[in-house]
């Protein structure tokens, strides 16, 4: 057992969390860590709890093919999964398949062709749209499937002699039902964690703009994305999604409802069928819109009020050392340990507080290795938004895998670090040159988040 494994065992047992393997321990915390991504923000009142639970039901709802004697009617005609929770299992992180014979269960592929759509975003593929829908309701052919193979890259040596081999995804599209797609841009996406988003929404846009304007060390820059706000009908600062291409939680939710589930809403009232998909356009509708405003309100409320798990074992000497190494390595230039939220009348529990999300919500050039070559509003094909790191240490316990980055290519946190390039190149190089014991401390710190 190495130092890191010993530490992980210590964290799990120290917090009384060996539930999978042993009876409950005395003095265990009331909220178990496997449910750590599903907890409301502290202070939710009785009436709000009702709305929170309703939103949770919507998030977990398996939607139904129309027509149906069910309020949940409206799935598809083309879709990826039946419910939000399918790709955000236990509100956490999705994963990529292990090989080409395994289907994407919590992952999707964004599609586009060169150019911009009318709203400034990516131009959808004329036949397959903005996203590959690998399911269709009975009678409507699914668009196809994307299969992933992994190519192992030559191992590299870190300071002290540790060898690490990274893997790179290779995509093939199979069973494409609406003709050969031709040349297109595509980008893989695993389901992202959905906790703590209300707090991130309450970080003022001015804060993002100010962070972007700050001078930063090591060649780090950072810029805001400017994206289309469908409700306000204007361009605003983007903050959600791997490319910060979504302005707010409501649009993020309604967009995913349409793109992933085929559920129309008042924000996006048209089904996601392209003109070429004639049977799709003729399929029965589950209502106009299929997702009621009350359900959209509820799911927005639920997501806005989901707490991020607090850090554990912060005073452990290894974790404390790891936090210092994390800062000294330069990670905190983008993975900011502290942000201040502003006022928020709609979701007051998120307002005016200091949070520790370990993100700046800005776009950064992450180099060619991670580039998807697919522009998204102001984000170019090499830029990605700094993902929040809060709760990241619980992924193995809650989501039962340890895949990271937008396409799950990193099989552990160290691999994720080693994929950093571009603006993060210097920080990654420092990490690689850091002695093993300090690297392990940094990883232990990440596991404590």
């Amino acid at each position, binding site marked *: 057992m190495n130092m890191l494994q010993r530490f992980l065992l210590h964290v799990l047992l120290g917090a009384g*969390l060996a*539930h*999978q393997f042993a009876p*409950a321990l005395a003095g*265990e*915390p009331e*909220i*178990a860590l*496997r*449910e750590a991504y599903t907890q409301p923000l502290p202070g939710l009142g009785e009436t709000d709890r009702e709305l929170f*639970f309703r939103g949770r*039901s919507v998030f*977990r709802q*398996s*939607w*139904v*093919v129309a027509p*149906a004697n*069910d309020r949940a009617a409206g*799935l598809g005609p083309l879709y990826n*999964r*039946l*419910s939000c*929770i*399918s790709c955000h*299992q236990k509100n956490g992180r999705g994963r990529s398949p292990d090989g080409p*014979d*395994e*289907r994407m*269960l919590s992952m999707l592929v964004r599609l586009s062709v060169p150019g911009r759509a009318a709203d400034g975003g990516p131009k959808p593929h004329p036949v397959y749209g903005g996203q590959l829908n690998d*399911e269709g*309701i*009975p009678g409507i052919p699914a668009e*196809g499937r994307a299969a992933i193979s992994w190519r192992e*890259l*030559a191992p*590299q*040596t*870190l*300071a002290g002699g540790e060898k690490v081999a990274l893997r790179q995804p290779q*995509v*093939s*599209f*199979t*069973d*494409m039902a609406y003709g050969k*797609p031709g040349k297109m841009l595509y980008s893989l996406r695993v389901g992202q964690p959905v906790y703590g988003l209300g707090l991130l929404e309450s970080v003022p846009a001015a804060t993002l703009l100010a962070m972007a304007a700050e001078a930063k060390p090591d060649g780090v820059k950072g810029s805001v994305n400017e994206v289309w706000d469908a409700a306000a009908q204007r361009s605003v600062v983007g903050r959600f999604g791997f490319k910060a291409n979504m302005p707010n939680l409501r649009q993020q939710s309604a967009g995913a409802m349409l793109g992933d589930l085929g559920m129309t809403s008042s924000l996006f009232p048209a089904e996601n069928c392209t003109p070429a998909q004639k049977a799709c356009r003729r399929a029965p509708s589950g209502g106009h819109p299929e997702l009621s405003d009350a359900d959209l309100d509820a799911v927005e409320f639920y997501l806005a009020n989901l707490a991020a798990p607090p850090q554990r074992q912060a005073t452990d000497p290894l974790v404390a050392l790891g936090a210092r190494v994390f800062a000294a390595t330069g990670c905190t230039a983008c993975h900011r340990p502290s942000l201040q939220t502003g006022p928020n009348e709609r979701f007051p529990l998120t307002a005016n507080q200091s949070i520790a999300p370990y993100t700046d919500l800005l776009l950064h050039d992450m*180099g*060619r*290795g991670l*580039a*998807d070559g*697919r522009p998204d509003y102001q984000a170019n094909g090499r830029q990605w938004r700094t993902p929040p790191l809060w709760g990241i240490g619980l992924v193995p316990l809650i989501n039962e895998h340890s895949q990271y980055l937008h396409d799950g290519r990193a099989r552990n946190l160290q691999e994720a670090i*080693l994929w950093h*390039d571009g603006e993060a190149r210097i920080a*990654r*190089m*420092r990490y*690689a*040159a850091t002695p093993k014991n300090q690297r392990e401390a940094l990883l232990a710190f990440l596991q404590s988040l």
Partner: protein
Amino acid sequence: MKNPLNPRRRRFLATAAGLGSLLAAPLAAPLAASARTTGRQPVVVVTSYNDETFSRFEAAFEKANPRYKLQLVWRMPHDALPYLRQPAQGGADVYWSASPRTFAALAADGAWQPLGIARDGLPENIGKARLSDADGLYTATEMAGYGFIVNPGALAKLGLAEPKDWRDLTAPAYAGQIVMPIPSRVGFAPVMVDILLQAYGWEKGWATWSAIAGNAGTLMDRGSTFVTDEVASGRRALGLSIDFFAVAAIANGAPLRFAYPAHGGLNPAHIAITKSASNPEGARAFARFVLSAAGQKILTHSDIHKLPVRPAVYRELPAAYFNPFAAAEKGAFDYDGELGRKRLGLLSALFEQMLINSHGELVELWQRLHRAEAAGKNVAAARQLLESPLISAAEADDPALQRQFRNRLEGSDPGSAGASELVWHERSQANRTAAGRLLQEMGA
């Protein structure tokens, strides 16, 4: 880092150079995607399993059977019935769900073809309940057990021990502390009503239900997760529930316990292959997989926590995992699901009129009754009025009456009350009014 000859600096540069080459050369642009056809044949499964359950089966089945891909059509049981009665059965190959009544109703329609799967290692019965259909058209794939989700801390504060059976819940100390699902709205609840009635008999059964309803602080019109939430929050001490939501929450660390009553019951889920299946071999492969040791093991994941129907699977599980086959040998599962099935709709309707409508009034009457009894007053007549069933056991056996409520599947819209229900409503109100008058006369 300022000294270029610093050994750490040299290591930094050497390592950095190596990684630089790693991240540059092979990754210049997205790789061209190829397109091909896999020819996986779809197996269309109509189910009401949630995603946490189904997606694990989907991943494992497709991995083990690369010839097939699963297509899931999600339908609540009340909605699965019309779906599977469509022409060509809506394109479904398989129906897999926890709704014995739907399977039986569709079997009567001639909707299934023989399963045709070897049953090695799969018993035909557990206690008095059949696990496979007598005609070999469908078979149980897993079971859920009925019982009590309890908050040990809240029970201790009330000075109550963990209940052993349904009757324990009639104790006055439980007043306001029970979460009770509404049988007409919550899928698992009608069978729960019947378990108690079969265990204690018609008269004593309804008397017990009335007292439990009198102690209910929350009537739940939604699923068992909400029962668990109420109890986990400490707002109520105990919930009437089915085991898997609660036990999954416990396995994930919730500070709760699940108690199986001495008079228990099991609600099986079944699988069947449709008569018009366009992929019967794929359907059979899926059914075989669900019943295999590998499939049955998936059911025991801490996020699912169902009870496998393959007894051998329990040998590999922790001792704390409830083994219904062992419990059945001790007589815990004498509940006869076949016997109850025809009357579940009727029972829900009776429950609604006697205990759910005017629930607040019922609670108040039971509290007055408990106080009077504690004070030594003879209020037996009032108690009898509160406990009396709205119809006799013989009347409830009337097939014509049962037929009126046969389509009241869980979650369906009950529509407006029929003539019988209006009569029961009046009878129930009269009983409560009379009980209240008697209590008043006794100064209670």
